[in-house]
């Protein structure tokens, strides 16, 4: 992380009590500044535009605009903004969808304040925080997609992803596979890119199918 600058964060959740708690946790660390709060998806899109946070910390179960759609819009409007999903349970489909539209990672709400701050700082620094449980979900998703036309994972990428799912750090993976940490990070980044691509293919296939149906 560069210098002493605090990470500018926007907190999105429809429960005010929860927002207060998260704000308190983040600000108590001295490394984060909460520059905006939003209570629903539509609000989040708008405030992200005005407050220009570096990172958006959000739940997926939101009124008005659903979380995934809000993430898609926020990332579309300002691609440099990082999104960290803070979800009450690993709702597989939603979390995967969120990552596909551009979220950089997700954390369970039962995470401790220290874990939360750590994740915020790391995501801002550009580290894809592929938590072990997210890695597991992604591995399952690619397995389900295998055989379709989507870009599949290479054997190496699958290996890396499985090790992340087993809780190995990038450093530990690098040591185990005789790679540099940077190479491991690249693998992880490629996996993410392929996952996001798969969504685009999905949309394209859908559009083509619709088009064919029409004609």
């Amino acid at each position: 992380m560069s210098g002493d600058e605090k990470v500018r964060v926007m907190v999105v959740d429809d429960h005010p009590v929860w927002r207060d708690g998260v704000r308190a946790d983040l600000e108590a660390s001295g490394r984060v500044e909460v520059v905006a709060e939003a209570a629903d998806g539509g609000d989040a899109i708008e405030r992200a535009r005005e407050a220009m946070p570096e990172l958006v910390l959000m739940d997926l179960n939101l009124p008005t605009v659903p979380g995934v759609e809000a993430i898609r819009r926020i990332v579309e409007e300002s691609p440099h903004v990082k999104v960290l999903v803070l979800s009450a349970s690993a709702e597989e489909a939603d979390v995967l969808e969120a990552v596909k539209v551009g979220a950089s990672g997700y954390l369970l709400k039962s995470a401790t304040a220290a874990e939360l701050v750590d994740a915020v700082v790391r995501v801002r620094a550009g580290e894809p925080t592929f938590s072990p449980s997210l890695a597991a979900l992604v591995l399952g998703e690619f397995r389900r997609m295998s055989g379709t036309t989507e870009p599949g994972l290479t054997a190496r990428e699958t290996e890396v992803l499985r090790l992340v799912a087993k809780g190995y750090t990038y450093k530990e993976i690098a040591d185990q596979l005789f790679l540099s940490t940077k190479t491991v990070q690249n693998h992880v980044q490629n996996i993410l890119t392929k996952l996001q691509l798969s969504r685009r293919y999905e949309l394209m296939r859908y559009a083509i199918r619709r088009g064919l149906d029409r004609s």
Partner: protein
Amino acid sequence: MRKAARGSSEAERGRAVLSLGILAFRWVSLGWMVILALTAGELRRPALAVATIAGLAAWTGWLTVARPRPTWPVLACDLALAVGLNLVAGLVMPAGTVGERPFFAAGYPVAAAVTWGAARGVGGGVAAGLVLGASLVAGQLANGIDLASSEPAVLLDLAGGTLNFVLAGGAVGLVARLLERSAGQLRQATEETIRARERAARLAERESLGRQIHDSVLQALALVHKRGRELAAGGPVPPDQVAGLAEMAAGQERALRSLILRDPADDGTPAGAASLRAALEGLAGAERSLPVTAGATGALWLPARHVEELVAAVRQALDNVVEHAGATRVALFAEEDAGVVVLTVRDDGRGFRYDERQLLAQGKIGLAKSIKGRVEQLGGTMAVTSRPGAGTEVELRVPIREDERDR
């Protein structure tokens, strides 16, 4: 509900088309009768002929306007009129001419046979046909024909006429039954679709129930859980009291989680399937001495017994981590690959050299019995990968038979 009526309305529509056809046939026959009556030259009893045609026209008109349901009185009346018509034909046509010249009754009596067939099936059609055949005989007698001394041709004519009635009635009866049956099949198929859809709706309802719990209770519990833990770590409140609170909240949270993630197909019965991922998440949430993450490639619905045994094995492995590893974190990970569930418990602690025989000799049975034994009972295997200084990975592999899963 609108859909439920579709099968029967299909039959209704078929029947409506049939009865419209019969009505049209009646009118055409009636018209033909009039033409024949006008062109046939002299009739023996013109008044009776006119009255008969008028009566039939009135009856047909009423059938057309009122469209009555084919009740017994309606059917009986129709048949009686047809029989009467055959008799009248014998009475009004010049004596002895019934067999040779166009029949005064034209095709009209056939409508009665057909109506009976449509309303009462093959049996009804044939019965009406036979009655009409008998009335043909009566008509011949009324026409002054001596059947006993007739030529065989006349008798053959008579038999042919009867056969026509019977065939018409029977055939339409058959068609009506087929129509009914296929409508019945359609209805049955539709009902099945509806049942499937209702089931899907119930599942969706459950899911939304789960989501509601997730939105309210789980959020609150997660908050209490988290705050409680932090307070216990150094708040002014007596720590053990707060810890108890957190424990309780965590327990609630787990219970609700497993409720949400429970197999929708098994409604609360302990037998059946359970989600391995939900179970692992529960375990991870319950561990208080170090951070544990839990992940899986999917919900992993397995026979409940498998999940129970695996959870017990993982608990032992976690105990070992807490007791021996000096780790900073543990990850539980489960995946399913080609019918085998692979579950790993991985810590970043000090590691050790795994030697089963040596451990057993020392009376240490956690790994060898509690973990390996359990997994082997499920037809699986255990592997320990560990080096001093490099953490420990305990891998459990259990085959899952599809027929077991689908119980």
